[in-house]
């Protein structure tokens, strides 16, 4: 019976936990770092049925007190090193991008936009899906870094 029970538990996990893990195109969506040190990574998941190509671009952004965000070229005070800036990901596979960030002033923040597109088209429109990974870096502790930046720099309190 033990084996039978375990079998059902595993089948249950495969049926219901597996699909949940596959639900997003990028993970984590947000990363917080403390003590000015950033040695992070994010994973792009290809949930399509064919291989895709991914190109990573880095940007700075700001948010006004109403919550509207504006994206711009990466600030020169933020230095980012990526292990790779593009990849091809097989159907239902995933790829991890590693990065290091060094900021001249803290706190700092930025975003990586992963633009995902499918096979080459000779005629018509090439569709691109963009999913972001955002990082926040604080001088003090990691926990609550995003909230402190939202309150201190963006004056967002909701």
């Amino acid at each position: 019976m033990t084996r039978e029970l375990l079998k059902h538990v595993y089948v249950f996990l495969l049926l219901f936990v597996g699909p949940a893990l596959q639900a997003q195109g990028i993970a984590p969506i947000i990363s917080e770092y403390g003590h000015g040190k950033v040695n992070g990574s994010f994973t792009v998941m290809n949930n399509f049925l064919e291989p895709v190509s991914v190109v990573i671009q880095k940007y700075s952004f700001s948010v006004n007190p109403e919550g509207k965000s504006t994206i711009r070229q990466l600030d020169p005070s933020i230095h980012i090193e990526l292990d790779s800036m593009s990849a091809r990901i097989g159907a239902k596979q995933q790829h991890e991008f590693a990065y290091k960030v060094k900021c001249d002033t803290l706190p700092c923040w930025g975003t990586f936009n992963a633009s995902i597109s499918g096979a080459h088209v000779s005629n018509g429109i090439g569709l691109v899906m963009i999913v972001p990974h955002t990082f926040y870096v604080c001088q003090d502790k990691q926990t609550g870094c995003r909230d402190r930046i939202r309150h201190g720099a963006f004056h967002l309190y909701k």
Partner: protein
Amino acid sequence: MTARPLFPFLLLLLALMSTSQAQFIELKGGDSSLFDAGGGGVVLHFPNTTETFGAGIAGGHLQFGASSAFDWNQWHLTAGDDYLGLTVGTGLAVPLRGLTGERKWKKQTLTVFSGAAGQFYSFPYFSATSVNHFGTGVLYQSKLPHGLEFSTMAVHVGSQYTAIGALHYLWKELDASGAVGLLQSQPFGNGSISYKPIKSLSFFATRQNYFFDVQQALTAGTSSSLVQEESTISSVGGSANLRGLSLSASTLTGTSGANQVSGQTFGGAIHPGPLAITSNYYRSAHGGSLTSAFTEKLTRRWSVSQFLLYSQGKWSLNYGGSFTSNRLTTSVGYITSFVPDSPGVSPFQQTISVSMTWQLPHSTTVTLATNTLPNGAVRWSTYGNSYARGPLQFGDVAGQSRIDETTLTAKFIIRGIVNDLSGTPVAGAAILVGKETAFTDSDGTFFVRFRKKNAVPIKVVAGDFRAPGNWHVISAPDMVTPEPQDKASVVNIVVSQVV
């Protein structure tokens, strides 16, 4: 040969004939002593329909399945194998073979079914259904105001009735769900509630009914029958997070037939720097057992673990860990399960698991896993799947699906820029550098990192550009040499779009 054994082969023949028309083809196969099943399946994705075929040996018998899913008017129809699933409060699924129709409105979903019902075999590598009774059923789900969600399912299979009503309520930090009714003509009741009064404190209470069809040998090695057994697990507990220290406690009660067991768990976890320390104490009528795990994240890819176990007066130390890369993910760890039907031994049972998953070229993934059960028996599973564009064009246009394994520690780099004849940067150009395919960003730039300073060939793969249109190469070098990152020159490539 009777008509029944012929049927799976006819299905396979139909699947093979259909591949020539399919837009995408998914192939999968595997074998497992843990699941006691081996087989394979094909999923064919057409523009308007999805066809699924599966066949294999499960529990010593040949099982097969096939289905075709398509839209008709405002209904989503499935002809063949499907299941009627009531997820709210139950996680219940009734396996079916026949015609299933689903209609969705803004806040309501209605599913109706008619055909036959039986047993469902679902594995990572094939799905099959064995049916033995006529069945018909209906499932209705509705989202109500004030965070309420109502679901009801009524199914008639053979001489047995299933009629269940379920309610889910979500309000701020309170999450409650419950289901009551008849499951295969037997009383059934499930419920769970969780509440988080403050951010660092949470409580929960659950009661779950489980029904299992257990293969029971009548005479050793000759014949067997399916016997339905019921287990009920109830648990109450809570957890608190105090300045990085997580504490949890729960009490569990399980009944399975005449066997009744209970136990308590107490746990703690702390994450000082790259270290994660978790410790759990499990108490039952058969004594206490302690499981402590010390996990250290050595690098982004590597972590090592030590597992300290105390059970039945004995201490043991085991080692595990994990390695994660873009090509291979492997881990060795321990899982503690609460198993109510375990007479004479502790209901808390430790299982050692080892798993390896490879992401291979051409959209192929292979997994190998072993599980050492509490009685020492080793069970293994191996399975894989692959995706192709129909008709059976595997992988990518350029045939390069290699997964980049460079790291930030790679000292050398090749940088480049792709422009058109007017000097405008070309975004999405595909450049094969050595064995890696790089794509340019919106500035037309690309880079690839290397561990060694060996010259590599460089090639523009016009047929793989992300940018639409037909492209040809005006100028590009044949070979390039990686250089140190701070001294790397820029490789210039010029392409032109054919109008």
